[in-house]
């Protein structure tokens, strides 16, 4: 395999505490190495450019039945963004839910090399892997929804955490998942009966369990199984005014589970969970309360779920929340109940600057990201496509890095939002170093990927080079240039191959790997007649046909972990 030497770039690598130092990065056989033979290697002159590790996105809905249903109901979304084929790349469509190939190309040209799929119902695992196989140029992983799975609820209600852990391990193997995803714990099961849970101590119908017990139980399971990532949590009451209290309750309920100061849960798209005010009329930001709590505690990591003012498609397993959106917007709505596992909903949504609630939502995401002092605790996402499509990341980065950029957008927002926003009082502007944390180093650390998000020797040969010269450019003032630089990387290198150059895909031979966790429990999960009977009675797929067999995953990257049960 070719050797590459990236010369004289300003290297920003927070994991190894390198901040804009001029140095060379050598890549050989798809890995970062100490040095390569300069005469043989392909030399990339990166002088005047910023060199970072390939981007790692912690939460983005890019594959699965839900994503595909979103594509199906939105012909008007594809109509405005048709992508023609080139000699190397395939045709496809955007906009808010790009087709699989276009997803790969667009992420890659932005310097991303790893993207984690935000959630999927285990029943639809095969569909997810078929789509992940078709997303080129990226390493991928996916999180199975386990918070409302009947076996989890039954075992946790019984108090049998070990048996629950074995079932989760079986599921992780069977669906080739990466982390435990919990969405509106208890709420999805309740939605099957037309109800929802409204606090972390509400009873889930028929199961004699509360959201508090589900979250605590699954955190214990996650620890027992030694999974690389913490549980990935979408809190109760998401998208409801005043829900920041529920979010705080959830965070307090799991405080004692962190014994070594390490995070035990990742709360995703925190913006949607930080609403204050009693109703939509009195809607305001709860960013202050949330960020104060996060600054004082270490057991939680967050991602933003930033809102972009655009036409997008919301999709989540949180069926009751999508119903709320439907009653608000009256737009076309998909509602679904996934047998014993989850629910789901999809609604197109347009975030508007002149809508007070939408504009305050925009402000909340940025407020939390800026008020949380430690960048290792909050990462940049838009919860693609719920807050906005991932192609808008450069705009979010510009807002984070430049007060001027924030002011330019805020002054065009609804008057009420301008009055209520905390942004004018926040002077913080993220540096390139902090930016590398929220987009790659921090996410890789939270995901437990020691080979990603940094440029140390032994790391994956994933490198992104951007047209920013930190010595001559004042990034806070030249936010438009920064936005452009992050939109089109000068080079994206994946596994030691140049895959994108100046915003164009130049390689179509790199499929990217699918990362999944193979948990070895001391005793295997007992597959007895009782379990098979349940499959027969409550699932539309028999036990024998349920697991995703190995041949389904085109390029498999198995991480084997030894569980302590």
């Amino acid at each position, binding site marked *: 395999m070719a050797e590459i030497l990236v010369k004289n770039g300003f290297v920003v690598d927070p994991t190894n505490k390198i901040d804009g130092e001029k140095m060379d990065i050598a890549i050989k056989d798809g890995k970062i190495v100490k040095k390569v033979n300069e005469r043989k290697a392909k030399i990339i002159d990166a002088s005047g450019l910023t060199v970072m590790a390939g981007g790692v996105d912690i939460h983005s809905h890019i594959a699965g039945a839900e994503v595909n249903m979103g594509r199906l*109901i*939105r*012909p*008007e*979304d594809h*109509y405005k963004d048709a992508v023609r084929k080139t000699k190397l790349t395939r045709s496809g469509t955007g906009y808010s839910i790009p087709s699989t190939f276009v997803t790969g190309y667009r992420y890659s040209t932005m310097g991303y090399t790893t993207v984690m799929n935000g959630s999927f119902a285990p029943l639809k695992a095969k569909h997810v892997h078929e789509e992940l196989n078709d997303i080129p140029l990226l390493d991928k992983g996916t999180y199975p929804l386990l918070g409302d799975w009947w076996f989890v609820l039954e075992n946790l209600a019984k108090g049998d955490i070990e048996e629950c852990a074995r079932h989760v391990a079986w599921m992780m193997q069977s669906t080739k998942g990466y982390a435990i995803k919990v969405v509106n714990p208890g709420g999805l099961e309740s939605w099957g009966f037309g109800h929802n849970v409204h606090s972390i101590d509400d009873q889930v119908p028929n199961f004699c369990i509360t959201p508090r017990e589900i979250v605590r139980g699954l955190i214990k399971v996650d620890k027992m199984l030694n999974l690389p990532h913490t549980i990935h949590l979408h809190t109760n009451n998401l998208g409801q005014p005043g829900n920041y209290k529920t979010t705080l309750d959830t965070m307090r309920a799991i405080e004692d589970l962190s014994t070594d100061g390490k995070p035990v849960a990742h709360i995703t798209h925190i913006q949607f969970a930080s609403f204050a005010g009693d109703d939509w009329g009195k809607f305001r930001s709860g960013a202050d309360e949330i960020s104060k709590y996060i600054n004082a505690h270490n057991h939680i990591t967050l991602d933003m779920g930033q809102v972009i003012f655009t036409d997008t498609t919301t999709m989540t397993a949180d069926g009751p929340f999508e119903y709320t959106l439907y009653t608000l917007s009256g*737009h*076309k709505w998909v509602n679904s109940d996934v047998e014993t596992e989850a629910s789901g909903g999809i609604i197109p949504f347009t975030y508007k600057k002149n809508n007070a609630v939408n504009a305050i939502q925009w402000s909340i995401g940025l407020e939390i990201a800026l008020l949380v002092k430690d960048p290792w605790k909050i990462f940049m996402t838009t919860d693609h496509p719920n807050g906005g499509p991932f192609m808008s990341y450069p705009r979010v980065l510009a807002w984070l890095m430049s007060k001027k950029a924030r002011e330019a957008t805020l002054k065009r927002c609804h008057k009420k939002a301008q009055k209520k926003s905390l942004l004018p009082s926040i002077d913080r502007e993220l540096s390139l170093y902090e930016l590398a944390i929220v987009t790659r180093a921090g996410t890789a650390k939270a995901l437990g990927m020691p080979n990603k998000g940094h440029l140390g020797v032994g790391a994956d040969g994933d490198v992104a080079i951007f047209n920013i010269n930190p010595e001559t450019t004042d990034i806070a003032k030249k936010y438009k240039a920064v936005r452009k630089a992050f939109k089109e990387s000068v080079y994206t290198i994946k596994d030691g191959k140049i895959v994108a150059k100046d915003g164009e895909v130049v390689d179509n031979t790199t499929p990217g790997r699918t990362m999944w966790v193979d948990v070895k429990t001391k005793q295997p999960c007992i597959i007895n007649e009782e379990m098979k009977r349940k499959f027969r009675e409550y699932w539309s797929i028999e036990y024998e046909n349920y697991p995703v067999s190995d041949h389904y995953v085109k390029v498999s990257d198995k991480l084997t972990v030894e569980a302590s049960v």
Partner: protein
Amino acid sequence: MITLTPLRNFDVPVHASCINPDEFKSKTLKEIAELPVTEGNRNLTLSDLFKIEQDKTETPSITLNGDFKKVKRVGQGMKTGEIIINGNAGMHTGERMAGGKIVINGNADSWTGSEMKAGTIEIHGDAGDYLASPYRGSGTGVKGGYIIVDGNVGNEVGCYLKGGVIKIKGNAGIFLGYHMTDGAIYVEKQCSSRAGAAMTGGKIILAGAVSELMPSFTIDSIKPKVKVDKTQSVAGPFYVFLGDLADHGTGKLFVSKTNNPQLAFYEKYL
């Protein structure tokens, strides 16, 4: 004035959104000839497909002579000027137009005037489906402007209409004014079923026979005449229906009393 004449018959769709007065303005004949168009999957220039001539007259800005049925997106997004099509027009003609005028001396295909904001479209023949309606799945309706059709129109005309006036001198198909919120539609002759389904505002005036009325409309009154826009009012009498009640709508559906004796039973509810 620029005159375009097709050099041959087109078998596959031609995408020519560059045929637009704003685009042609301040360009030389040579520059216009090199504007990009696609025929099927082939990238071509305007002069590959059309004979281009220029003369000194100011209006109309563009004249298209011949059959343009396969040529899509003529006048897309135009803001000023005038296009005259002496022949049939293709799909998406005048889509998203924000001003100016398009005259079609022939038939218009589907999605003519889709998502338009202002301007005038005159169709001196028939129009296809989705006249003044958004693309499938979209809720972005026509915001304003004026469309007049001498002939018949197809199905789903004026969907999601938010403003503007559509006058149809012939017959209309099903789902006329589906989901409209404002604006006015006037049909002189027959109208097929489900007119005004899911409408929440605006008015539909049906001066001819109506094949079926949605059950989710309620009768309000009988009026001797009704105003279409500032310049035209139509003599009745008209039944006035309100709906669509299934969507808590307050749209008005005026149906001719004389041409619809089958609706006389509604009068007992007045």
